C-alpha cells in the first residue's frame, strides 16, 4: 500500500510596473512581497540549513553558476505566512509557494489563496509608489518574447522508489497531460514555425530529457534531490514542466492525477507505459497540435496518441483504486473528473473550455477576434492572451469568466479567503502557520522542515520538522492550546 503523499506548488508570477518611472523587476517584486506584511511585522528569515538545491537525484552534487546566492544575502524580501506558505522574491519574480497539502482539493484552495495574496500585495505595493504607477501581476509562465518562469509541483515520494523507474514511468505522462495542464498561448518560441496558438506556455522552453537545471536547458524530468524532509526516507519529486493554472479543474487534475500515478508507481501497479521516441520534440509537437491525437513514435516502432497514453494511466489508476478498496473521497473525484475530461477530449478537446485554461482562452480569443475582425497576430488579441492571467478580480479575464459562471469552480470563495491566513490542518504546515500566528515575535526563521525560535535565551532554538505528515492539528493542537508562549512550547517539546 502506497505511503501518504504530500504536495506543494510554487509559482513565479509575472510582474510589471506601469507608469512614468521605470522600476526594475527585482525591486518591484521586493515591493510586492514587502507590502503584504502588516505594519510592524518583520521578515521571518528563511532557514537554509537543510537546503541543497544542487544535490542530484542521480547521486552527486553539481556546482551551478546559475544558482543565485540566497535571497537573505541580497536582502530581498522573504516572508513566511500564517497559512504556512512562503512568499518571497525569486529570480526577479514574486513567488508564492503553497503550504504542504495532503490532497488535490486542498492544493486548489491554497493555490487560489496565492492569487488573492498577490492581488492584495500588488495593490498595496502600488500605493507606496508615486501617483500614476500601477503594479500588475500575472499568473502566467512566459512573456512570449523568450523568457519563461516557473510553476513547480513538488511531491513527497519514498526514497526507495528508484529514480530511474520514476523517470521511465512519468515521462509519457508528462507529455500527454498537456491536455489539461496547458494554460495556452499565442505563437511559439521557434522562429519560422507557423503555430498560431498552442496548448502550453512552457513546452517550447524544454530542451533536454533529464537534468538538474531549472533556468537553462530545462529538462522534462528534473533531478533536484532536496527532500525538505528526512532524506533517508523521502525524495521530493520536483516537477518543472507544468503551467500555472487559473482553472480550478485544471489545478485539481494536474495535482490529483500525479498523486494517483505516484501511488501506482510506488506499488508497481502501472503497466509499462510506451517509451516515446525523441520525447522533447514530442512535447513540443503535442503542445502545437491541440487535438491530442497526434501520432507519436514509440521506441519499439509503434504509434500512440497523447489521448491513448492518458487512457493507459487512467485505466491503471481506476483499477488500482478499485482493488485497494480504500479510495479517499478526493481520489474518486479525481478519477471521475479525469474520465469525463478524457471522454470529452475524445469528441473534441476544444470542448474543455470552462475546465482547462488553454481551451477556455482559445474560445475567448476566437470569440473576441470574430467580433472585431482580428487575426491571431493582432495586439488586442495578444492583450487578451496576457490579460487572461491578470490576478485582479475586476480586470483579469479569467477572473471575469469565473464571475460570469463560464468556468467551473470546485472550491468556494469563503474557503479561499480563509486559506489566505490559515494553514491546512493535516500537514506540518499547520504547526508552521500556527506558531507564526500565535508567537509572531518569537519565530525568527522558518524553513520547510524547521522553525527557529528566539525565546530570550542565549541561543536560538531550532525545531526540526522532518516528517511532513507530523505537526498536524491532530498531533499538536492540544499542546499548542496549552502553552502561553514559545518558551513553554519548547519546554513541552523537550528541546
Amino acid at each position: 500500500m502506497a505511503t501518504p503523499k504530500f504536495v506543494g506548488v510554487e509559482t513565479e508570477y509575472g510582474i510589471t510596473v506601469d507608469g512614468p518611472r521605470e522600476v526594475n523587476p527585482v525591486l518591484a517584486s521586493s515591493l510586492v512581497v514587502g507590502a503584504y506584511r502588516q505594519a510592524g511585522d518583520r521578515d521571518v528569515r528563511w532557514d537554509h540549513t537543510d537546503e541543497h538545491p544542487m544535490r542530484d537525484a542521480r547521486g552527486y552534487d553539481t556546482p551551478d553558476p546559475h544558482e543565485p546566492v540566497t535571497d537573505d544575502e541580497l536582502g530581498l524580501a522573504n516572508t513566511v505566512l500564517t497559512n504556512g506558505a512562503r512568499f518571497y522574491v525569486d529570480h526577479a519574480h514574486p513567488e508564492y509557494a503553497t503550504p504542504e497539502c495532503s490532497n488535490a482539493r486542498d492544493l486548489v484552495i491554497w493555490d487560489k489563496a496565492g492569487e488573492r495574496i498577490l492581488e492584495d500585495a500588488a495593490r498595496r505595493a502600488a500605493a507606496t509608489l508615486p501617483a500614476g504607477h500601477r503594479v500588475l501581476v500575472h499568473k502566467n509562465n512566459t512573456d512570449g518574447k523568450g523568457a519563461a518562469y516557473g510553476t513547480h509541483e513538488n511531491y513527497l515520494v519514498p526514497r526507495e522508489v528508484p529514480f530511474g523507474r520514476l523517470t521511465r514511468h512519468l515521462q509519457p505522462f508528462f507529455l500527454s497531460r498537456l491536455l489539461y495542464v496547458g494554460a495556452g498561448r499565442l505563437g511559439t518560441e521557434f522562429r519560422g514555425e507557423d503555430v498560431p496558438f498552442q496548448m502550453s506556455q512552457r513546452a517550447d522552453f524544454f530542451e533536454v530529457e533529464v537534468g538538474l537545471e531549472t533556468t537553462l536547458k530545462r529538462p522534462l524530468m528534473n533531478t533536484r534531490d532536496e527532500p525538505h524532509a528526512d532524506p533517508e526516507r523521502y525524495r521530493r519529486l520536483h516537477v518543472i514542466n507544468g503551467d500555472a493554472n487559473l482553472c480550478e479543474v485544471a489545478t485539481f487534475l494536474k495535482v490529483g492525477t500525479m498523486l494517483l500515478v505516484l501511488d501506482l508507481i510506488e506499488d508497481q501497479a502501472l503497466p509499462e507505459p510506451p517509451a516515446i521516441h525523441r520525447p522533447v520534440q514530442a512535447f513540443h509537437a503535442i503542445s502545437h497540435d491541440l487535438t491530442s491525437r497526434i501520432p507519436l513514435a514509440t521506441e519499439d516502432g509503434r504509434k500512440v496518441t497523447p489521448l491513448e497514453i492518458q487512457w493507459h494511466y487512467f485505466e491503471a489508476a481506476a483499477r488500482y483504486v478499485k482493488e485497494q478498496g480504500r479510495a479517499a473521497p478526493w481520489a474518486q473525484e479525481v478519477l471521475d473528473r479525469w474520465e469525463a475530461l478524457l471522454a470529452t477530449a475524445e469528441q473534441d478537446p476544444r470542448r474543455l473550455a470552462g475546465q482547462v485554461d488553454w481551451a477556455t482562452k482559445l474560445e475567448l480569443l476566437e470569440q473576441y477576434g470574430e467580433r472585431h475582425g482580428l487575426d491571431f497576430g493582432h495586439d488586442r488579441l495578444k492583450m487578451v492572451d496576457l490579460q487572461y492571467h491578470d490576478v485582479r478580480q475586476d480586470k483579469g479575464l479569467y477572473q471575469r469568466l469565473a464571475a460570469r459562471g463560464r468556468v467551473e469552480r470546485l472550491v468556494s470563495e469563503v474557503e479561499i479567503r480563509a486559506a489566505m491566513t490559515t494553514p491546512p490542518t493535516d500537514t506540518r504546515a499547520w504547526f508552521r502557520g500556527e506558531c507564526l500566528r500565535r508567537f509572531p515575535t518569537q519565530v525568527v526563521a522558518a524553513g520547510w522542515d524547521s522553525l527557529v525560535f528566539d525565546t530570550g535565551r542565549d541561543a536560538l532554538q531550532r525545531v526540526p520538522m522532518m516528517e511532513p505528515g507530523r505537526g498536524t492539528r491532530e498531533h499538536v493542537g492540544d499542546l499548542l492550546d496549552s502553552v502561553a508562549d514559545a518558551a513553554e512550547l519548547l519546554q513541552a517539546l523537550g528541546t
Partner: protein
Amino acid sequence: MSEGGQVRKGSGSQDEVEEVEHASTDTEPVAKDLLDDVDELLDEIDDVLEENAEEFVRGYVQKGGQ
C-alpha cells in the same frame, strides 16, 4: 462551465442531421440565451481590456526565471 457549454456537449455525439433538427426545435431558446451571454461577456472585455494594447503588449518583457 457555462450552461451553454453543456448544451453543446450534448449535441456533439449526434450526427449532423440530428443536430440541425434539434437546433430548430427545443434547443433554440437556449442557443439564443447563449449568444446573448457571449455578447455580454465580449462587451465586458471591451470595457476591461487594457486600452493601449499595442504599447502594453510590446512593453511586457519579463526576466527569465526557473
